[in-house]
């Protein structure tokens, strides 16, 4: 492996890894406060990706427009995706978790209801052409709903250009934007949970829900907040994913969700910094593994890595959970 290839693999691995990490936050946050895996989170991401695609279509984004309008459009798409993902995450919390929690149902029941929500959300998107047909909107909405089960492409109005090169490897603008944006978002979230009043509530509930309630923390509000935060991050991850990969479809969340979940477990589920670290490690491992063994070994390498890490560190690389990490 030449130095250039090594830098190439490292850099692009970090780009994909940062997206995994951002996506993984939703799993980690919810696990932190509820001790449950939110299996509908993959669909939260998928809905965000469609929101971005549709907003871009609606606003007429196309390649070759000016840099400033292009950035403006991307920001609008980002906000739309974050809002839709955050909204879907709140809906998931309301429908799949709240009532069960109020009745003190065993955790496994909530797990199953989340899996059910995941199927529903995914199929609603996959059957959107027929659903639009039932309400008589199939014709007017044709560009948005037709070919419901196929790849839909995201028009990235910002042309990717070479920024600079490191020993022969050209660093492209899209890659830098994705990487920087993902890391900024994660640092922002980490600081929010660490420093803000609401963040303190999140940490308190994750450490000891009963004591937090006694101290006047509204547990339901905190749980809503964690779902919302996870959803917002998933929406951002969706836009970055679209900038990097370019297409989405109704079941895009499945494989990516497994990868993001892996990243969360790898870094230590319940730990925000662990999600970022896990994502980056996973992205790098996939790229190095693909290069050494061939791309068809990509998933094998990443899951083998997960097994190995869990064998020696059952709580993940950084271990510990949301609250305890900085108690």
């Amino acid at each position, binding site marked *: 492996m*030449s130095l250039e290839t090594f830098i190439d693999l490292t850099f*692009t691995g970090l780009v994909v890894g940062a997206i995994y990490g951002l996506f993984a936050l939703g799993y980690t946050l919810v696990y932190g406060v509820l001790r449950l895996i939110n299996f509908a989170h993959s669909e939260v991401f998928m809905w965000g990706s469609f929101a971005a695609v549709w907003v871009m279509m609606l606003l007429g984004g196309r390649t070759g427009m000016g840099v400033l309008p292009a950035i403006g459009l991307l920001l609008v798409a980002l906000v739309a995706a974050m809002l839709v993902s955050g909204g879907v995450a709140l809906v998931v919390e309301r429908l799949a978790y709240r009532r069960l929690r109020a009745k003190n149902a065993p955790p496994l029941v909530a797990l199953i209801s989340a899996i059910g929500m995941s199927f529903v959300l995914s199929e609603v998107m996959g059957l959107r052409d027929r659903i639009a047909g039932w309400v008589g909107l199939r014709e007017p909405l044709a560009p948005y709903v037709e070919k419901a*089960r196929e790849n839909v492409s995201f*028009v990235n109005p910002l042309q990717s250009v070479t920024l600079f090169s490191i020993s022969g490897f050209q660093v492209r603008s899209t890659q830098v934007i994705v990487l920087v944006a993902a890391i900024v978002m994660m640092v922002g979230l980490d600081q929010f949970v660490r420093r803000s009043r609401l963040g303190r509530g999140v940490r308190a509930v994750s450490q000891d829900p009963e004591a937090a309630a006694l101290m006047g923390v509204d547990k339901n509000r905190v749980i809503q907040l964690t779902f919302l935060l996870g959803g917002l991050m998933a929406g951002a991850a969706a836009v970055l994913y679209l900038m990097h*990969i370019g297409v989405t479809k109704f079941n895009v969340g499945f494989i990516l969700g497994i990868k993001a979940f892996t990243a969360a477990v790898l870094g230590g589920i319940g730990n925000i910094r662990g999600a970022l670290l896990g994502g980056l490690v996973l992205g790098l491992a996939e790229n190095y593994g693909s290069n050494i063994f*061939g791309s*068809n070994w990509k998933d094998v390498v990443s899951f083998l890595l997960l097994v190995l890490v869990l064998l020696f560190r059952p709580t993940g690389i950084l271990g510990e959970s949301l609250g305890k990490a900085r108690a």
Partner: protein
Amino acid sequence: MRSIVKLATPFAAAALLLTACGGTTGGSTDAESSAGGASGCPEGASIGFFGALTGPNSNLGNNIQNGVKLAVDQHNAKPDACQVTVTPYDSQGLPDQASGLGTQAVRDTKVLGIVGPAFSGESKVADPLFAEAGLVGITPSATNPALAENGWKTFFRVLGNDASQGPAAASYITTTLQAKKVYVIDDASEYGKGLADIVRSDLGAAKVGDDTVQTGQTDFSAVVAGIRASGADAVFYGGYYSEAGLLLKQMRDAGVTTTFVTDDGAKDEGLVTAAGAANAEGTIITCPCLPPDKAGGSFVADYTAAYGTAPGTYSAEGFDAASILMAGIEAGKTTREDLLAFVKSYDAPGVTKQLKFDEKGEPSDISVWAYKIAGGQIVADQEIKAS
């Protein structure tokens, strides 16, 4: 324990539901119609179309089915014609769906012949079932050479296999494109790997690197890094359009401008959609299929009139395959046995070529074309002559 039962119950219920659904169709198994005699027209006679009608690579399947339906409609419109319907078997292009659907087709005695399976992977699963049942299957698009080597008496195809496409692609890359360093990638599918392996061996020393991706993969950064490192001046991709389009987009996004050459499985506007028109510009596609507008007779006009769009890739091949079956039914060959014998000895001009099969079921007349993406459209470039 209780929790395990709770976890398992919905899955078990879902599994039961699925098997129940699988069993409901294709139930009518009266063996009467096959005994109807040579001249009779069995009630509800039908031919099957076997291929992806939904799923990520369904555009090709729908193109073919439209061609098949056109041939059947034209047959049915003739005076005193034996009315035939088309029974769709939607495999989604997945080999693991093919076995159940193949059995369904075999059991339904009203189905006299099959157009398909469309892809090579599913053919490998379904064709043995057809061979055992004596059900003739004419594929308009499955091009893996090994399919013809199994001694299936019911296997026919109306287009050249990858043993003709592979060398043509390799010769186009080395002579027309003048490429000295070629990077070869496949998707590990029956079709993509088979074709890419032929290209690999034909290129010999000109191949500077290779890789295998997974179907359904979306991030190709490691592949792109490999291509960049090899300094290749051409990339050959053996596989279908979903992955080809994403790989192409990510190559161009990463600043890799290497010429992209791919195969008939990627010959679809889905490739341009996934990659973006600007990124796809100049991409070469090889295909043992005639450019749709070069099809003979009134096919192009009829197709356009029927569907409102020009014929797509393999529409004409689908039409030809179905036309052979229709000619047989018109000649009174309305049992599976008679129809099979009829196809075996068929020799007449179709819209894509002279339709005649050798003893393995391969077409005797083969042409391979190179297509190019220009302005977001797939246009015919030139016929690749055997070298």
